[in-house]
Every structure is written in structure tokens, then in C-alpha cells.
């Protein structure tokens, strides 16, 4: 039977080249995992944007709650000692 139900949504993550990490590129609709991978390839890597693709069903992603932003993120804001900025960098060390 034909139904007018939409295919589930998948989020697409692309690694643009070796050594970099995957970044969110967008989303596609697909009936199953393999189709999602194909759709991601055909939609988001047409202009050589990637060397690796991850897809994951959008409803399987667990996201932080915007209402909890304060509790989640603000406590880190005044803990400057967590940043590695209190070290003297030896002479001759570049790119640290």
C-alpha cells in the first residue's frame, strides 16, 4: 500500500579531508540507512566536499535542552584556570 508518510530524516556529517573531523553538513530524507548514505553522497559531496560521510537518524540524536543552558554551560565561564594560558612558553617553541 502506498502511504503519504515521509521518509525519516537523517543528519549528515562530512569529513572534508583526512585529519580533519566530521562536520555537520545538513540533512536528507531516506527510507533506510544505506539510502541515507547514498542521498548524503549525492546531495552533499557533488563538488568534492568530502572523503568520509556519517549519517545518523535525526531522532536518534540526544540534544541538550535549551532551557538548561544556564546549568549546562555557564559554570564553565568563570573557570579561567581550565584554559592553558598560565604557562611560560619556552623560547623556540612555535605554533603552540
Amino acid at each position: 500500500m502506498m502511504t503519504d508518510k515521509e521518509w525519516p530524516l537523517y543528519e549528515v556529517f562530512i569529513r572534508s579531508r583526512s585529519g580533519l573531523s566530521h562536520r555537520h553538513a545538513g540533512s536528507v530524507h531516506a527510507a533506510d540507512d544505506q539510502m541515507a548514505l547514498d542521498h548524503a553522497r549525492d546531495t552533499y559531496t557533488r563538488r568534492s566536499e568530502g572523503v568520509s560521510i556519517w549519517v545518523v537518524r535525526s531522532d536518534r540524536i540526544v540534544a541538550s535542552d535549551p532551557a538548561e543552558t544556564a546549568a549546562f554551560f555557564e559554570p564553565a565561564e568563570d573557570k579561567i584556570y581550565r584554559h592553558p594560558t598560565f604557562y611560560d612558553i619556552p623560547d623556540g617553541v612555535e605554533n603552540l
Partner: protein
Amino acid sequence: MSTDPRLIDYVLRLGDNALVLGQRMLEVVAAYPELEEELANANFALDYIGQARLFYSYACQLEGNGRSEDDMAFLRREQEFRNLLLVEQPNGHFGDTIVRQVLFDVYYLALLEALKHCKDTGISEIAARAEKEVRYHLRHGAQWLVRLGDGTEESHNRVQRSLEQLWRYTGEMFAADELDAYMLSSYDGPDLEAIGEQWREQVGAIVAEATLLLPADQVMTSGGKQGIHTETFGYLIAEMQSLPRSYPGVTW
């Protein structure tokens, strides 16, 4: 070294298969039910058109009398096209399109793999490039065939009928004519008998996974390699060539 006219004929034949299949697929651009499949179809169609351009340009270079790839595509008559009958078959419904694609791509991929190692470097370079594209098309098409065959009762029955209807055009792919034999002996070209065996095995596996049945052995229809086409081909050529025929020398 003087150019081998039979090599030119063979390169044109490769170009014709790619062009005609690409043209068929372009007919349904903007008519797909899903955006992502729409993009895939258009991408694949342009892959074939790109392959046709490479083959035609190479044929023109071998010929060396000033004809261009556009002349090959737009100014040859219907009987001068030597593509397989399978690739010129109408799109039909989505299942028909997918079956045509899988039956052809299994063959075409094996052919390109063989051509990669033939003695003519012009052909082998194009084949190496096209092979990667077609390997992906086949992955995509085979997945769809399994999805439809092993899907609902309706999709199963429809795609089984597609298989029955297109089967008669598959024999031609492996029926080596004089030119195929010449390419095999003189250029280490594809051995169509071996490719046929490989094809039956691979198609059999995909069809089995799709819970479909292979059609019974039957009389095969052929003629494409000799320029004798099925009825709908004239319309395809007419549409494809109408612009350059109506406005000779037009550029776009």
C-alpha cells in the same frame, strides 16, 4: 601509425551506449518523487553524458577529419547509432528504470573493468574514470531493486514484470559480433562470453536477494549493434537532436 577505422567504430559504440542511456535518464529530470533521488538521477545521467563526450572526443581525435563530439551526438542518423537496445528502452515507471539500470550497469561495469586493461590507452583511460562512476550507480540501483523486490506486494509484482519485459534485450550484450571479436583479438578487449557468465552470476545474486525470479530463457531481441533500433528510439533521437537540427551551427 595510420588510424584503425574499426577502433573508431568501437569507440563510437561505447559513446552511443553512454549517450543514449544518459538521454533517457535526463527525460525524467524534475519528475522524481523525492528531492534526493532527483539529484542522484541527474548526477548519474550527467555521468553518462560525460562518458559519451570522452568517447566521442576520442573518436573524433582518431578520425582526424574535423568532426566534433557534437557532430557525433547531434548530426548522425538513427541507423548510425550502435547502442544496445536495452539502454534505449523507455523509462516506464520507476521500477522499469531501476531494472534497466541494474541489468545494464552490471554488464557495463564488467566491460569497463576489461577495457581498463585493453591495449588502446585512449580507451583504457576513459574506462578507468568511468568505472568508478558506474560502480556507484550499480550500488545505488541494486539497493533499489532489492528494496522494491523485497518491498510491498505491489512493488514486488511490478518490478518482477519489469524484469520479464526487459530480459529479452539482455542477450545482445553478450552476443559478440565481428567487431567485438576483433577488439578481443587485436586489442585484448573484453571477452563477452566471460562477461556474460559473470553477469548471470551477479544479476542472479541481486535478483535472489530481491526475492524475485529470473525470467525463463527466451528468444533474445537484438539489432542495436547493427543500427537496427526499437520503435521508440526515433523519438529519442528526434527530441535530442531537434535544436541543432533546427538551428544548424547554433551555440549554447
